[in-house]
């Protein structure tokens, strides 16, 4: 390749600089604003020169701080609690999706359940369903159908253990939100993992089987370690969706299971647009995905391209 070795045009570097500026500019802007007082944001005297303050973060995190910030009269934002809910929901749904998806992908590849085309097609079909379409049925089912009467043994036990009132329904629980996230992410995860499992040499598995390993042992000891990069990619994608999703979570959660995106949308209330606090909450929500991106960008790109380019 002779062309690439030649010295690049300065315009080329200018283009790259502009692109970088455009892609991270808004994030940097949000980061900077989250350290400004509302007065500074509104008057706009500043730009990048201002006196940073952590007041916005104090206000956002007031329910988990060990001290009471004196500029607050009461703690209205329960960000800490929502953050924990988000973590629980995102982590558990990621783990579940991976385990279940991995097993299914393995079965599809090794036992030739369905043709690859059928799987790709049905994955695409399921991926086609927008969350908004699931809103109505999930709302109805989770609230009314997927319930255990509180007079039944299990239902009574749950009410005794966890408190609360009325019949025990999936709506308003962490499990309810996790279930729909797992279902939404499974097709994609199966699709990605498939393309990695196909590459695991069959001979390795057969060798293990000859040594007397059962199918489960083969799966856990031989296959899983070999598809780690695929697992990482799938994990990040599942986590991202479960962490960022708003619509279904807002229909299914109650006051104890609110996730961070719901809190942020709610906080854009019409009576007080407090930009500083909004930016701070936005930043806190964005931090985990940003960390993932910086640490594992290669896996993310592998995951993104695996589906489209190879499949």
């Amino acid at each position, binding site marked *: 390749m002779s062309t690439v070795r030649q010295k690049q045009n300065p315009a080329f570097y200018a283009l790259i600089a502009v692109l970088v500026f455009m892609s991270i500019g808004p994030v940097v802007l949000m980061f900077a604003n989250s350290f400004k007082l*509302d007065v500074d944001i509104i008057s706009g005297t500043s730009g990048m020169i201002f006196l940073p303050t952590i007041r916005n973060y104090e206000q956002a995190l007031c329910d988990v701080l060990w001290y009471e910030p004196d500029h607050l009269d009461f703690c209205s934002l329960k960000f800490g609690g929502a953050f924990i809910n988000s973590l629980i929901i995102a982590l558990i749904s990621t783990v579940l999706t991976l385990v279940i998806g991995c097993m299914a992908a393995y079965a599809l590849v090794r036992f030739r359940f369905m043709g690859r085309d059928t799987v790709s097609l049905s994955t695409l079909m399921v991926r086609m369903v927008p969350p908004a379409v699931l809103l109505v049925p999930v709302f109805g089912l989770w609230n009314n159908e997927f319930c255990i009467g509180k007079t039944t043994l299990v239902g009574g036990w749950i009410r005794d253990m966890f408190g609360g*009132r009325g019949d025990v329904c999936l709506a308003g629980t962490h499990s309810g939100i996790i279930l729909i996230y797992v279902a939404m992410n499974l097709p994609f995860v199966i699709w990605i993992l498939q393309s990695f499992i196909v590459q695991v040499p069959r001979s390795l598995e057969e060798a293990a089987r000859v040594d007397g390993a059962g199918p489960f042992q083969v799966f856990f000891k031989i296959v899983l370690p070999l598809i780690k990069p695929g697992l990482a990619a799938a994990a990040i994608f599942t986590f991202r969706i479960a962490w960022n999703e708003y619509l279904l979570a807002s229909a299914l959660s109650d006051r104890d299971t609110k996730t961070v995106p719901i809190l942020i949308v709610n906080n854009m209330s019409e009576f007080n*647009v407090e930009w500083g606090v909004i930016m701070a909450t936005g930043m806190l929500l964005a931090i985990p995905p940003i960390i993932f991106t910086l640490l594992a960008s290669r896996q993310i790109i592998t995951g993104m391209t695996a589906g489209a380019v190879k499949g």
Partner: protein
Amino acid sequence: MYTFIKSTTLGLTAAALMASTAIADGHGGPYAPYADTTLIVNFPAHPHYNAVMKILPEFTKETGIEVEVDQLPYLKMRERQTLELAQDEGEYDLISYVVFSKADYVFADQLENLAKYFMNPKLSDPSYDAEDLIDGYVQNIGVAGGKKGYLPGATGSLFGIPFGSETSVLAYRKDIFEKHGIAEPTNYDQLLDAACKIPEVEPGMGGMASRAASGHQASHAFLLHLAPLGGRVFDDNWEPIINNEAGVQAANALKTIVDCGPEGAMSFGPAEAANAFANGDAAMFMDSIAFMPGFENPERSKVVGKVGYAMHPEGVRRGSQTGGFGIAIPKNAENKEAAFLLMQWLTSKKGDLMVAMEGGNPSRFSTYENAELNAKYPFSATFGEALKFADPDWRPIIPTWGKINADIGTTMSKVLTEDLDIQEALNGVAERARAVMDEAGYYTWQ
């Protein structure tokens, strides 16, 4: 009692409650039987309720009743309540409801009639002085079942108590008006003239900041002008008359105001509009009194001390809005009696004043007359005056209102942004509204 005994744990609580009532009867005061109860209440994110949040610790200290608040933006709050109130057993012990939810909830039999609580000598505070509550608010927000179903009347009864109720007043920049020799607007002609004169004489400043965002906000802004200009959404036979002359006039007024308003006015919600005024981008702001204390807060406002407050200008009649919130006890609540005690405490003379001093909206005449309050918020007197002209019928509070409101809002927003013909647009609204009303059975008796 029936709901109490449904599950074992709750049954135990109820038994404990009854036992302690018996013991504490006559001793330990009215709150003693309910000490250590935790009430779960649902309040909106609203300046008034932010003030309430500051005084709730006082209630807990005085009574031993804990309060856990779930604060939501008010449209979200309504969605949440629709769900919660429909359950057999709900989570909330006390809810704050938007005035137009009154119809939905009462119609679906989801709110407690308050009569039995005020009758109960153990619960009802003899010094409550219900006559002192602002009558217009009580009728508009608390009473249901009278004339037209939502207005006061002989057949009405009380389901809620106004709390965080509001009416509309006009805030204007005294300095700007004086500088250009514009008089304080007292009628709509003056108001509209001033609104469009200001951008001419004061470049960069909009005339009036108003809500206009698509949906509920645009509808609210339109109705705000409809009543004073002599219009109504329906006549007495539920026929839509929103498209008559007054309706067109009101839509024109809104369009004029938005066109002469500050930058980006078309997408303003109330917060953006209030912020624009507080930031000096507009010379007038006409909306709920709930926003006004914010303009005197130096942390959020650049116009402290420069604002004059006037009554909602007169069209063919005086008719400022009545709106805001009331508090009520859901039928499916767990701790109804303790909830009543909280409700009574908050709306008592003492509670009302405390909330008002923190920047809330008073629900009592006596609070408006309080010297301390007037010293802290000099506009209180104007508000008290404005209340006398508050129009309880400025928008219909009927179960079908949600749908019609959304339609008005979308159509108005289109009028503002897409230059739709106003008469035609309103005709469309009237036609669709009639279909909705017909389906709901409002023409059965005709």
